[in-house]
C-alpha cells in the first residue's frame, strides 16, 4: 500500500464548452464541462485537467465561471491551465475552485513566477508543464528541447535541466508532454519520462501519445510516471477510465479502484 498511480483525463475548454478534436482539427462541441467532469468522476478519474484554449483574451474570464461550476459539483482535484501569466491569474483560478494550476510558456518567460507562486501559495498547487521535443533521434544519449506556445516556439533550453530548475524553484509537480508523440497514438516518449524522473523527486505526469491501455501501463511501469494524462482515448469512448484502471490493476499497478 502506498500512494496510487493516477489517471487524469484532460479536457480542452473553448469559450466555456468542452471541445474535442485531433490536433486542433475538426474541433467539435463535446458538451457541458460540469456534465463531462461528473461523468469522469463517476468513472473513477483521480483528477481532472482543464486546458483553456479560448483564443480571444476578452473571453478568458469564462474559464473562471466554468471552474466555479465544476468545483461546486465535482469533488476531486481540478487542475487548470492555459494562458496563465501572473500571480493574479493564479489566485483568481484558485479562488474559483481550481486546486492546481499548470504553467508552461510563462514559466519560461518569467521563471520567478514559479518561485513567487510556490513561496506565497504553496508548491502543492503549482504544476509546471514541459513540452519537450527530441533534438537527436535514435541517439544513445538522447536530449530534448523545450517549446513554448503549445509546442510552436523552440527555446534552446534542455528539458532535463529545465525540470531540475523548476523543481528547485518550487514546482510541486511536472506535466511532461512529448511533442514528438503528441497526437500519434504511438505511446509516451518513455525515455523522456524516465530521464526526467531520474533527475527530480517531485511527481511526474506523463502526457502525449496515448493510443491504448498498454501505453498507460508502459508510462507507469517503464516511464516511471506517477500519473498519466490522456484525452482522446477517453473522449472518443474507446475506453472508460474504469476499464483503464481495471486493466492496470490486473497488471499489478497500484490504482484507486472503488467498488462501493
Amino acid at each position, binding site marked *: *500500500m502506498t*500512494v*496510487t498511480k*493516477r489517471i487524469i483525463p484532460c479536457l480542452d475548454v473553448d469559450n466555456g464548452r468542452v471541445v474535442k478534436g485531433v490536433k486542433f482539427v475538426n474541433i467539435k462541441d463535446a458538451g457541458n464541462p460540469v456534465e463531462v467532469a461528473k461523468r469522469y*468522476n463517476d468513472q473513477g478519474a483521480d483528477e481532472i485537467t482543464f486546458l483553456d484554449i479560448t483564443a480571444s483574451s476578452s473571453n478568458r474570464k469564462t474559464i473562471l465561471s466554468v471552474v466555479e461550476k465544476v468545483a461546486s459539483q465535482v469533488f*476531486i482535484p481540478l487542475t487548470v491551465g492555459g494562458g496563465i501569466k501572473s500571480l493574479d491569474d493564479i489566485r483568481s483560478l484558485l*479562488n*474559483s475552485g481550481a486546486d492546481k494550476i499548470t504553467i508552461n510558456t510563462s514559466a519560461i518567460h518569467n521563471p520567478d513566477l514559479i518561485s513567487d507562486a510556490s513561496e506565497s501559495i504553496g508548491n*502543492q498547487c503549482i504544476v509546471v508543464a514541459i513540452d519537450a521535443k527530441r533534438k537527436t533521434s535514435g541517439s544513445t544519449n538522447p536530449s530534448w528541447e523545450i517549446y513554448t506556445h503549445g509546442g510552436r516556439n523552440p527555446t534552446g533550453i534542455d528539458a532535463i535541466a529545465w525540470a531540475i530548475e523548476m523543481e528547485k524553484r518550487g514546482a510541486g509537480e511536472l506535466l511532461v508532454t512529448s511533442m514528438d508523440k503528441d497526437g500519434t497514438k504511438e505511446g509516451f516518449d518513455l525515455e523522456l519520462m524516465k530521464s526526467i524522473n531520474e533527475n527530480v523527486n517531485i*511527481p511526474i505526469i506523463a502526457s502525449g501519445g496515448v493510443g491504448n491501455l498498454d501505453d498507460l501501463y508502459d508510462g507507469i511501469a517503464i516511464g516511471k510516471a506517477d500519473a498519466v494524462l490522456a484525452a482522446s482515448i477517453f473522449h472518443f469512448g474507446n475506453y472508460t477510465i474504469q476499464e483503464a484502471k481495471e486493466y492496470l490493476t490486473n497488471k499489478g499497478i497500484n490504482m484507486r479502484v472503488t467498488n462501493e
Partner: protein
Amino acid sequence: MKTIAIIDYGMSNLNSVVKAIEYVAPNDKVIISSDQKVIDSADKIIFPGQGAAKNCMQSILERNIKNLIIKNSADRPFLGICMGMQVLMENSDENNGTECLGLIEGDVKKFSSSKKNNIKIPHMGWNKIINRTEHPIWNKINQEAFFYFVHSFYVNPKDKSIIIGETKHGEIFCSVVAKDNIIAIQGHPEKSSDTGLQFLKNFIGMK
C-alpha cells in the same frame, strides 16, 4: 438549521471546503470568518489550511485567533484539515522548528525521501486510510478507504490511542486523530470524491 464556521486566517483557498460542505449540508449555514463572535456562535468549526507551518502560525498569531481556536475546539465539534491538523500539535519540524498550538501532544515530522525507497515528496495523490478504531466519523466508510493527500509533513502524536486512521507512504503515519471534540485529518475530504463527502457528512452529524 445549524451554523458551520470555516476559520479564515488567510492561509488557504477555502472555496473547495466551502463548496463541499454546502453540498453535504444544503440546509445549514456555512460561514467563512475569523471574527470571534461569529465563531463563538457557530455549532461546528472547520479549520483548514495549507502552505508552510511557519506562515500558518504567523497568520494565526497576527489575527489573534490562537485563543479563539483553543477555546472553541474544547466545547463543540472541530475538524482540522491538512495544515489545520498539523498546527494543532505542539511543534513542527518545518521551517527549522515551528511552535504550534499545542492542542494535541506530539510533533510534526517530514517524510524521508530517497531514490531507493522511491518515496516522493510531496506525498501527492490518492492513498488509503486504514481506520483502526470504531468512530462515528467512519460511518458508511470502508475500513480501507481512499482519500486525496498533498503534504510533505505528518503528525506524530504522543498518545497513540487518539490515532483513528493510518496511511502508508514509505512509513506508516497517523492520518486521522480524534481527541475529545477534535477530529483532524491529513488528507483532503473535500477533494476525496464520495468517500470524502461521506466523511464531511459524518462530521456535520456529530454532536
